[in-house]
Structure formats: C-alpha cells, structure tokens
C-alpha cells in the first residue's frame, strides 16, 4: 500500500519526469494512429469495393496481421532503420519517429481489417443506389468512409489501444532512452525491473486512465454523431 500512495503522490504532484513520459507516449501512439489511418482507412475501403484475383488471400493476410507480435515488428523496423539497413541513411533509429513508424506498421492491419468489414457491410446496403446514381469509384470510397465514420471510430480506438499498450516494438526501435524515447510502457517495464514500483504503478494508473478517457470521449462523439446523422 505504501507503493500505491507514493504512486498517487507522483501523479497528483505533476512530477515532470512522469508527465514527460506520458506526453511522449501520447504523441507516439496518436501519431501512429494518424499515419496508420492514412493507409488503413482507404485500403480497407478499397478492399470492400473492389474484386480482383488474390483479394481473398490479401484479406486473410491483413486479418492475420492484426495479431502481429510487436517484437517482430520492432525487429523488422530495427533492421530497416539500422545503419546497414535500406533506410539507415534516414538516421531514424532510436528516435520517436522510429517508434511512430513501428507502431503504425503494427496497427495498420487492425485499422484496415476493421474498416474493410465495416465498409463491406455498408457497400452491400448502398451498392444498388450508388450504381443507379452513377457514383464514380473515388466518390464511392469517400462516401463509404464518410457514412461509416462513426463505426470507424471503433477501428481507430482498437488501433490506439494496441499502440498505447505495446512495449516490444518501441523498446527495440526507440531504445528506451531517458527523456527522449521513454514511453509509459517501456518505463513501466524498466522501473519494475529496477524495483521502483511507485513510478511503475503511477504510470500504469495514468495509462489505464488515458485509455479509458479516450474511449469514453470517442464513445460520446460516436453516440452524439449517430444521433444527429442516424
């Protein structure tokens, strides 16, 4: 219980080290969601709208990649960004940008797969009307993503949850450098191994609270939006 009260003191006292870690974690995870959305939303929408040889295999692959092990993604990105790797000249390894890259890779399949499912259902409903209206393929994609926007919040939340909770990928490509690439999850792992349980528990509590707050906010936006747009 002593550790618990110390953790609480750290949280309420606005400990600068703790809040720097929180800030970086949010920046990395939200940036990863933004990057993954740019790829995953249109990819999922296109998979719902188009038919081509190998589409089924691609869907199976994307679905399977929803369960990608973070350490494997971390290792892959590490090899890409390491000095001798194909993207080594970018000098991104052990920077927040590398962490965003790794997390974006990790969650793009989640966003794409959930988007495809949602868009697929909507397309079954809209197909005849859109064909009758002569809607162009690009407009179909835009319409599906727009009309499914409140359902797609769930896909973005799933991606955010995965990014915010993972530790393996950011540990490998970020290096867990103090005041530079240390996130909540890597800090919790480190502080626990050092026996500094108050900080680890404080970070854990903040992480849980943030995920809860973001989910609650998204749920509220979705509920209000659906009521207005039906």
């Amino acid at each position: 219980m002593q550790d618990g009260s110390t953790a609480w003191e750290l949280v309420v006292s606005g400990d600068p080290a703790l809040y720097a870690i929180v800030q970086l974690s949010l920046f990395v995870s939200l940036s990863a969601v933004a990057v993954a959305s740019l790829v995953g939303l249109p990819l999922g929408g296109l998979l719902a709208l188009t038919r081509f040889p190998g589409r089924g295999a691609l869907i199976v692959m994307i679905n399977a990649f929803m369960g990608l092990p973070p350490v494997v993604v971390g290792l892959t990105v590490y090899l890409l960004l390491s000095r001798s790797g194909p993207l080594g000249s970018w000098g991104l390894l052990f920077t927040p940008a590398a962490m965003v890259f790794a997390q974006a890779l990790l969650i793009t399949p989640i966003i794409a797969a959930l988007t495809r499912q949602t868009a697929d259902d909507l397309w079954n409903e809209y197909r005849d009307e859109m064909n009758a209206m002569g809607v162009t393929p690009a407009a179909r994609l835009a319409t599906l993503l727009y009309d499914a926007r409140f359902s797609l919040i769930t896909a973005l939340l799933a991606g955010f949850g995965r990014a915010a909770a993972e530790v393996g990928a950011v540990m490998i490509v970020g290096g867990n450098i103090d005041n530079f690439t240390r996130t909540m999850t890597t800090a919790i792992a480190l502080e626990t191994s050092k026996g500094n349980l108050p900080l680890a528990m404080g970070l854990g509590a903040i992480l849980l609270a943030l995920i809860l707050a973001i989910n609650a906010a998204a749920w509220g936006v979705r509920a209000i939006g659906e009521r207005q747009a039906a």
Partner: protein
Amino acid sequence: MRGPLSELPLVFDRVSQTLGGVQVLRDLQLTIAPGAPSAIVGPNGSGKSTFLRIAMGLSRPDAGRVTWGGQTDPAPRRRAMLFQRPVMLRRSAAANVAYALRQAGCPGHRVRGRVEELLAQASLSALAGRPARRLSGGEQQRLALARALARDPELLLLDEPTANLDPAATRAVEDIVRNAAASGVKVVIASHDLGQVRRLAGDVHFMVAGTILESAPVADFFERPAQPKTCAFLRGDIVT
C-alpha cells in the same frame, strides 16, 4: 430545357436472364417509347424487378440485347430508379439530395437552389435538416424520388414505389410521379397496385413467367383484355 432524348426508346430484344438456376426473363421483347407512363404488371416472381434492374443497367442479361436510344452502353446517363426499399445515406434529407445532384454533375453553385426546389417538389422542405433515416417510410420514398429527379432523368424506373405505404403517403408519391411525367419524364412503373396503374399509366404490359403476355393502352387492358391469363389476373386468380 430538356435536351434531346438519348435514353429512349428503351428496347429489350429477346432478352433472357437466369438467376440462381431460375430463368427469370425469357426472350423478352419490349419497347418503351417516350410518352405517358408505362406500367409493368404481373404476379410475384414474373420478372418485373429483374426487368427494371436490366433497364437501369444494374444487371446484364445472359442473352439478348438491350439498347437505350440505340446505344448499348448500360452506364446510366439520364436514367434514375426508385427502389421498393430505397436506402438513405447517413446524412440529412437535404444532404441526400445534394449528394445525388453532385453525382449527376450539378455545378456547385447551383446545388443549394436545386436542393430547395427538389425538396419543395417532394413536400419535404420542412424536413430538410432531419436525418434521412429518421424519416417515415412515405417521407423516405418521397426523398428517394427527389434524389432520383436530381439526375434530371429522361427515364424514371419505379419498382413498387408505394408498397407498404398508407393511402396519404401513396397519394403524395403519385403526385410527384404525375408531375414528373407531365414535365416530360418517361416513367416506367412496376406495380402490384392495379388501382395505381389505372391512375398513373398510359399503357400496360402484362408480364408472366419472364415474358410479356399482353401490351395495351390502360383502358383496353382493364376493359378488353385479350388473353385468358390477363382476365384471370384481373379477376384476382393466381396466374403462373
């Protein structure tokens, strides 16, 4: 001003279609020419909806040839269709009409004015901002008609447009259809409602088992049917 007709005549030349192993249309011969609304009547499963889908260009026939104004390209130019259960986009009534206008190539600066005109035509001005999916069945059907008319169609295909609507909603839909027909739009309506066919149609095509059994002006169809099956259908007998 309406341009020269390019979707008409709509010609079905020996068109056949099989769906799920069942032959829905058989060597169907039919020409839809400009003029008063044409009604397609027939028992359930006679192929009316399949006919309309092919006429709209939503399905391709297995055999035979369909032409629109002599063209074989099925891409809808100035054709529109009202489905029995229209799907509303997840946005307001006005936004649904604006969407159809934009897809039809209406210039951006004219969209707002046209939306107001079309909603007024459908007596939906007061509901412009309401989510389309929250409208009643009759209001949704009127909105779908406004959306179809946003394409400034020459040919308007209606698939059981008032099925499941109450009499007041039916009258409202029929008024819009009548006004559209009066403005020069060729209306083709598939309907079970023989009263509606009498009220709206200029000519009637009786379809049974995927083929046209009889075509006649509306008065002749009801007063002097030529085929025994037509007589049976009008009596209310089951016709196959």
